[in-house]
Each structure stands twice: as C-alpha cells, then as structure tokens.
C-alpha cells in the first residue's frame, strides 16, 4: 500500500476528469488538476470553500444539493450519477456528467470522522452540443435555411447548436464552424460580460422577445467588423431541454433609414416653421408696396398732382386695375397657403346671417351700382343664427355674390336667406341668384378648381380664378356645401348650405 500511494496521487493528479472530494458540509477537501482544467479554479482557490458556491449555477443549486444528499445518505461505497449544468470560473456554463462515491471516514483525506464523498466530473458539454446539434440539424436545418433571417440556436450553456446559412453569411463564418462556440463569439468584446448575465436570466425565464423593440444591438463578424443587428428570441422546447432560438437581422439599413427619417423630420419641421414665418410676413410685405402703387395711382387719377390727358388717365386706370388684381391674387394665394398649412384657424360663434349678407352687399354696392344692377335681399322675418366662423362665412358669401355681380351685366342679383326645411336641422341656406350669362354645362365639373376662370361669353372679366376654389374649401372646413344651378344665358344660382349647430 505504501508504495502504491505516490502512484495513486500521480494518477489522480493527471486524470482528465475533475476529481473532487468534499466533506459532509459540502466543503471542498481536495481538487485535482482535472478540476482546475474543467472549472478554471486552482486548488488553492477551491479547497476549503463550499462546492455549490463555486460551481453550481444559482438555479441549479437545489438540484445539485439533492444529488449530493442522495449520495451522502447512501451507505458507504454506494455510487450516484448526475448530469447537469455547472458554472466555470469565467462564468461560462458547461454540462458535466458527475459520478459520486460515498466514503467511510478516512484519515487520508479528512481528519474528521465524518463521511466524505469523492466526485468524478466529466465535461460533456461538447458531446451535448453535438447531440443537440444533430437532433436540430435533422429536424430543422432545411426549414431554417429557408428562413430570411439568420437563425442561431443556443442550448442552456449558451453554446451554438445550430446556425443556419444566413447566420453563417451574416457573421462571415464557413459552414459548421459556429457549432459548439459560445454565442458571445458573435458579440463585440465589450458586450460579452454583460451578455452572460442576460443569457442566464433568459434561460431562467424564457419568453418570446420580438425584434426591434428599441434596443441598439451590435454583432461582431468573423473579420472583426461590428454590425448593428436586430434580434428576436424565443424558447424552443425539445425533449432534451429548453433551447433558445434567436433570429438575427442586419439592421444597418434600418438604422440608416431611421437616422435619415429623423433628419428629414427635423428638416421638415424647420421648413414648416420657416413657411409659417414666411406667411406671416408675406401678407404685410407684399401689400405694402401695392399700397403705394394703388394709392398714388389714385391721387394721380384724382388730379391732385395736376391735370391729366385722356390717354394718361386711361393708362393710370389700367395700372390701378392691375394693382387691385394683383392685390386680390396675393390675398387669395395667402388664404390658400394658410389652408394648405392648416393655419386657417376657425373661431366658431353664433352669427346672424342677415348681418353678414347686408355687410357683403353693402361692400359690393359700388360695383353693382356702376353696372346698374338691382340688388334684392330676401330676408326671413325672424333672425337666423348659425354656428360658424365669421371670416370664412363672410369670404364665401363675398365670393359668390361678387361673382354674381361680375357675370351679370343687366338685371337683378337676388340674395335670399332661409332656414332649411328639414325639421329641427337648424341649417340655413344662402342663395345668390343672378340674371347673368350663366355657366356652360361643360364648365360645371371644373367650376371649383383653382385658377379655373371660365366665362360663358368669352369676355375678359376681372378675377383670380381662386374665388370659388377657396369658397369650396372654406365651406368644407365649415361642414357646409355650395350648390350650383345655371341656365346658359339666363343666369346662375349659387346656394351655400350651412349645417345646424
């Protein structure tokens, strides 16, 4: 026996397996070189410490405990086996196959009289990975290779058991090389340590996690280049335990698009602000010079600056007409721009329709008088109130009434106000009828288009071609509509139908 001992010690030291002795308190008594290789702790680090603290993953502690209890409870010489997860010093999980034998108290290894256990642990990680890998390859490889995304399947130790063609291409590895590697090889160095923790958590509480939920993830290609990735995770239950399936997508393009989109949005917001400022100053800036043009043309025509020849007066009238036309174009365009920018703020209030109609017709009096038209207002005996925006209503009524005056060379412009017959609707209709030239049937469809300047008699008439277009859009905003009926040569009727409150 005495000569045998150094040889035993030599064999023990050089056995490929981890040979570990523990006492009844599960404290490590002995730790061979095989244990150092498998677990990464030196004998000096291991001896005297609780085995479970050192090598059992947190969630495996209870199971390991039970296994050891089982051996300790058996009679001396009994053998117990166990296969499960162990934790290495570097945090990596491994599969071990452990066989334990209970010893009677033995002064060779322990001074105490308590029983001890000798464990012989074999690292079977590689075997497990190949087994899982083969199982998966057989069942899923074809399916995974057909998927658009890179697929990487991990087992509980975080080692890759399957990587489809797309994954090998994405990360730049040749076929089969990734199997057996810890998944951290696909991560940049700086993220690996944190990933151990995430992975251990995930294995404990596996759940489906969708791709692209605001995480900026990064992958590392075989050539050392980092790529942005989107990753989805889902547990994959197999008879051999829970695996983790992760689908990985190259997010380079998506993140570029996102960045571009953000930049574009910022630019757009700035442009909108600039447009708003522009609109605000435009109104003032464009009208100011026209003030001088129209004003001084007027003073000249009033002969305040001296006498005029007939030709001078004719030309000055042309300037004034053009100036006024330009002014209404500017006003209309600003209205359109405001509507396009949704800057047209409506302030709804209760409004007496008759007030609006009378104000509009009074403003149009110079034009209707100069053409010798008779203007008839047909108002109901009682006040008719509507809930609407004063400015928009005034503008619509002005536009349709001004058109009536413009396209009517003799006869009557009749403006009538009535409540709508539908019981309790509260709606009103404002109709403007003229005895003018009427509208050609073929002009009807484009009547409300922008810059649609249509004249049944072909005569040149003042106007921007925007009046009806703006009126229609304002009516839409008010929830109102404009109806038209016309007889060529006999006149037209434009009816604004306003909804009730």
């Amino acid at each position, binding site marked *: 026996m005495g000569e045998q001992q150094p040889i035993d010690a030599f064999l023990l030291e050089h056995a490929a397996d981890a040979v570990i002795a523990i006492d009844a308190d599960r404290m490590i008594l002995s730790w061979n070189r095989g244990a150092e290789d498998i677990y990464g702790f030196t004998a000096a680090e291991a001896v005297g410490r609780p085995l479970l603290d050192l090598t059992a993953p947190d969630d495996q502690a209870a199971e390991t405990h039970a296994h050891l209890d089982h051996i300790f409870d058996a009679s001396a010489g009994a053998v117990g086996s166990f296969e499960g997860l162990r934790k290495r010093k570097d945090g990596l999980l491994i599969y071990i196959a452990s066989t334990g034998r209970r010893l009677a108290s033995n002064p060779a290894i322990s001074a105490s009289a308590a029983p001890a256990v000798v464990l012989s642990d074999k690292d079977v990680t590689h075997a497990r990975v190949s087994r899982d890998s083969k199982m998966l390859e057989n069942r899923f490889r074809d399916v995974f290779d057909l998927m658009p995304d890179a697929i990487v399947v991990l087992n509980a130790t975080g080692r890759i058991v399957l990587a489809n063609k797309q994954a090998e291409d994405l990360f730049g590895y040749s076929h089969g090389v990734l199997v057996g590697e810890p998944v951290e090889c696909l991560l940049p160095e700086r993220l690996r340590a944190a990933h151990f923790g995430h992975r251990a958590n995930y294995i404990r509480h596996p759940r489906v996690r969708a791709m692209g939920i605001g995480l900026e993830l990064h992958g590392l290609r075989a050539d050392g280049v980092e790529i942005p990735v989107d990753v989805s995770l889902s547990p994959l239950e197999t008879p051999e335990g829970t695996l983790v399936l992760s689908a990985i997508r190259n997010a380079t393009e998506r993140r570029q698009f996102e960045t571009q989109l953000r930049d574009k949005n910022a630019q757009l917001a700035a442009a909108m602000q600039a447009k708003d400022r522009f609109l605000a100053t435009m109104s003032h800036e464009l009208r100011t010079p026209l*003030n001088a043009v129209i004003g001084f043309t007027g*003073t000249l025509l009033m002969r305040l600056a001296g006498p005029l020849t007939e030709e001078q007066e004719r030309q000055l009238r042309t300037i004034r007409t053009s100036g006024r036309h330009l002014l209404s174009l500017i006003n209309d365009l600003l209205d359109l721009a405001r509507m396009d920018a949704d800057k047209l703020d409506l302030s709804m209030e209760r409004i007496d329709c008759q007030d609006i109609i009378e104000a509009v017709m009074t403003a149009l009096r110079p034009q209707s008088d100069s053409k010798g038209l008779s203007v008839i207002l047909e108002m109901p005996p009682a006040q008719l109130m509507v809930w609407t925006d004063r400015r928009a209503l005034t503008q619509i009524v002005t536009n349709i009434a001004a058109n009536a005056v413009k396209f009517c060379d003799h006869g009557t412009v009749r403006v009538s106000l009535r409540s709508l017959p539908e019981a309790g609707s509260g709606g009103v209709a404002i109709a403007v009828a003229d005895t003018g030239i009427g509208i050609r049937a073929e002009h009807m469809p484009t009547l409300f288009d922008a810059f649609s300047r249509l004249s049944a008699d072909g005569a040149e008439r003042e106007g921007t071609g925007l009046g009806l277009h703006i009126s229609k859009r304002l009516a839409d905003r008010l929830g109102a509509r404009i109806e038209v009926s016309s007889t060529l040569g006999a006149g037209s009727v434009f009816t604004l139908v306003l909804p009730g409150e």
Partner: protein
Amino acid sequence: MAPRVLIIEDHADSRELMHFLLSRSGYDVICAADGVEGLEAARRTQPDLIISDIQIPRLNGFQVAAAIAADPNLRHIPLIAVTASAMAGDRETIVRSGFHDYVSKPIEPETFVVQIARFLNPGTGL
C-alpha cells in the same frame, strides 16, 4: 387753424401717400416713423387725430394705443389704425385695443380723406 393730423407709419411711401392726401385736403400733417417717435410727437404737438400703422418698430400700434389711452393729455384724441392685415376678425381686435376705427391697406385715396374727416370735430371748420 387747420386740424392737425399725426401719421405714425414706418413705410416711407405709405407715409408720403397719406401726407400728400391729407395736406392737399388742408390738414396740418405731422409724421413719425415708429411708435416711440409717434408718442413723442403726439405729446409735443397735441394733434386732433392720430393715424397709426399696426406693424411699426419699437412700439407697435397696439402699444401706442395703450400708451395714448393711459395718457390724460392724449386719451381724448381719436385714433385710427391703418393695417395691411385687414381681416374681418381683426376689426374687433383693433377696436377693442382702443382704436376708433381702421383703414385697410391699400388706402383708397378717393375714400381715405372722407373716412378720416368723420373723426375730426366738425367744429374745426372742415
């Protein structure tokens, strides 16, 4: 003595137009190019009527109106706004801000003097 009208208007052409129309009509016209200058001129010359643009530098038309209303020596003077942003809703804002009336730009020379004359005391001879 001719009634005195103070014009507060930053735009030279518009100022000249109003000055021309009113002086041709026999008024004693004083001009100022911004709100601060306008208020100083008002205190110094005690005009019978003040015409002020709304968008003017240093003090805008509304601020001028408030300053005039707060000044016991000026608050009796009729105040007319001249504005290029003449929208139906603006009229109420302007009148509520202490102006007696407003003239929208562009000024129509034929009606401008008539409109202004309504606010001058008939007892002044016009």
